[in-house]
């Protein structure tokens, strides 16, 4: 087996360990398992990074062109942001309860879709906008995933503030943190849409064509735009927005990976009729 694949599946396995540690930690109310979950996520992140690096080095083609690579890179950004948040900014031990199972399932799914490394990059993708676009999309996903995780923490603490939930930050802190991650995700989705519009303008001469993927990205952006309006203009706080962020995450995953690559669109493996 290629070293790239060994690293990849090792990362999946360690994310699996992390997932079950978090879930059993939550069920058994045993918070030491959260530490196991965090450490195994950190341990899985290393081979995850290595697998992306090895694949990239093998061909020199950016490692986010196929659906498998796109999911792998998205999960990479999500785990990176999760680890940075957990280790530096604000410690919310059970946060991985949502982040790591999502990462584990998505990365496992990506593993079933792995194809050979592309030997060359489609001419339409030979643009610096590609990086801006992908970084915007993946960081946006990472942000809203953590926002949803914080929303889940909010709901857990609100339901039962005893035990492990007692060691979570105050409800208002969780609410504010979740809002900030949504705002960050909204900006990054904005960056994704703007860079996509510029890129499309260079390649096709139009900035918006109501392509299904464009519409899905608009759907994601509107969903979080509505979230922000509900909070800022209508004063929504707390559990309502926490539920909203969890439901929005499902739509987000569908819009990001579920639909675009299954339809004949500009983004379907980035095919362009150029015969």
């Amino acid at each position, binding site marked *: 087996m290629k070293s790239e694949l060994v690293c990849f599946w090792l990362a999946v396995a360690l994310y699996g360990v992390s997932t079950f540690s978090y879930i059993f930690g939550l069920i058994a109310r045993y918070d030491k398992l959260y530490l196991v979950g965090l450490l195994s996520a950190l341990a899985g992140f290393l081979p995850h990074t290595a697998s992306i690096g090895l694949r990239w080095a093998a061909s020199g083609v950016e490692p986010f062109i196929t659906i498998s690579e796109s999911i792998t890179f998205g999960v990479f950004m999500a785990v990176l942001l999760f680890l940075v948040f957990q280790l530096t900014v604000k410690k919310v031990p059970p946060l991985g309860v949502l982040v790591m199972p999502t990462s584990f399932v998505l990365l496992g799914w990506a593993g079933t879709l792995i194809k050979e490394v592309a030997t060359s990059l489609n001419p339409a993708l030979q643009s610096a906008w590609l990086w801006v676009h992908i970084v915007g999309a993946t960081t946006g996903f990472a942000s809203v995933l953590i926002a949803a995780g914080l929303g889940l923490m909010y709901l857990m603490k609100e339901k039962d503030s005893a035990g492990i939930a007692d060691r979570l930050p105050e409800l208002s802190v969780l609410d504010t943190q979740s809002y900030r991650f949504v705002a960050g995700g909204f*900006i990054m989705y904005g960056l994704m849409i*703007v860079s996509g519009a510029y890129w499309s303008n*260079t390649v096709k*001469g139009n900035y918006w064509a*109501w392509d299904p993927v464009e*519409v899905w990205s608009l759907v994601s952006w509107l969903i979080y735009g509505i979230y922000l309006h509900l909070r800022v203009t*209508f004063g929504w706080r707390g559990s309502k927005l926490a539920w909203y962020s969890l439901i929005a995450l499902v739509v987000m995953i569908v819009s990001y990976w579920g639909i675009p690559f299954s*339809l004949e669109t500009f983004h379907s493996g980035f095919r362009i009729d*150029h*015969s």
Partner: protein
Amino acid sequence: MTRNERDEVELVAETESFPVEPRYHPIHRIPRMIYDFLASARLAMALLVAILVCCLAGVTVVRGAQAWLTIFSTLWFNALLVLLVVNVACCFFGRIWHRRITVISFGMILFHMSFVAMFLAIVYDSLFFFQGSLRLTEGETLQNSDPHSYDGYRQGRFFSFSRLKGETTLVKMIRGYRVGGEDKRAAYDVEVGEPGHKRREVIYITNNLDYKGVKYLPEKEGYSALIVLSDKTGKELYGAHVPLQSLKQKDNSYLYTTGTKEGAGSFPFPQDSPLYSLQVAYRPDPVKDRSGEVFFQVWPYREGEIPQQEQPAAAGKAPVGQHFSAGGHTLAAKEIRYWVGMNVRHDPGKPVILASLWVGLAGMIITTFGRMRKGRAGKG
């Protein structure tokens, strides 16, 4: 203040202000109601949700071209977008007016202003835009201002063809064009402009040519065969460049043939006084560019008939440059050239639209940082 006191104040005000104004202003009240409706935050939310639902329907219930026809191109959907922009303008600027400018409000002003600017630019663009498909064979020149030069075009109500200056020449189509080691696959060496002020550039998928606000973008390319009709003595009677369609086959290979993009077909040949219905297909040589085999199918020409249902009067193949015998004449693909299709666009509002996107994004970032700073200050 009691009711009696209030009546007294109103009475004094009435007696002291001249001329006496009516208490009820129906004419003033109606615009006020309209403004209140347009400036409603609830309307903003309702519109956002309505557009979101339409978008979701446009990618689930109906898709692709059907979604474009039934939702995204319709008057009612575009009216929703217009109403949202008007609502943004009234709702936001009505609330921010005369307020102290803070980092947060500045960011929000930028964000909402970008929406309004983008909308105005889209309206302007829709009135003055031009989008045409220009097809050229190598060496061919077409007048930009002549509508007949375009296979098809769309234009804004106030667009004038005189805006398209000069002519366009396809000098050469280059296969396997490389820039900095990157394979661009196909590039077009084109020359655009008026005599004495021509601009020549090699364009490829991520590099287009801009001439006086008109963009030339590569779109598609194919083979064009110079088909020559000769008599038995070899004297050339007629010749024409015939663009060939590239039709993808089940095994992912391409068939280059006359016809339409829906399938292979014949055409009257010669064009002015047809003798034959002719179908030509080309198989490129995998090694040597512009060479290979040409396949001919010939039927006697009968006006209004589609000959493919019957056996051809003559069928066979010949290498490029060699003759094929078709009854009393010979046919030859004298040479193979490339044809290219270019997307010609004039979008005068686009710079504002694209700039608005960045302004909007900057507004989002400034607002977020402003809020974070305020949050920290609140804690401190």
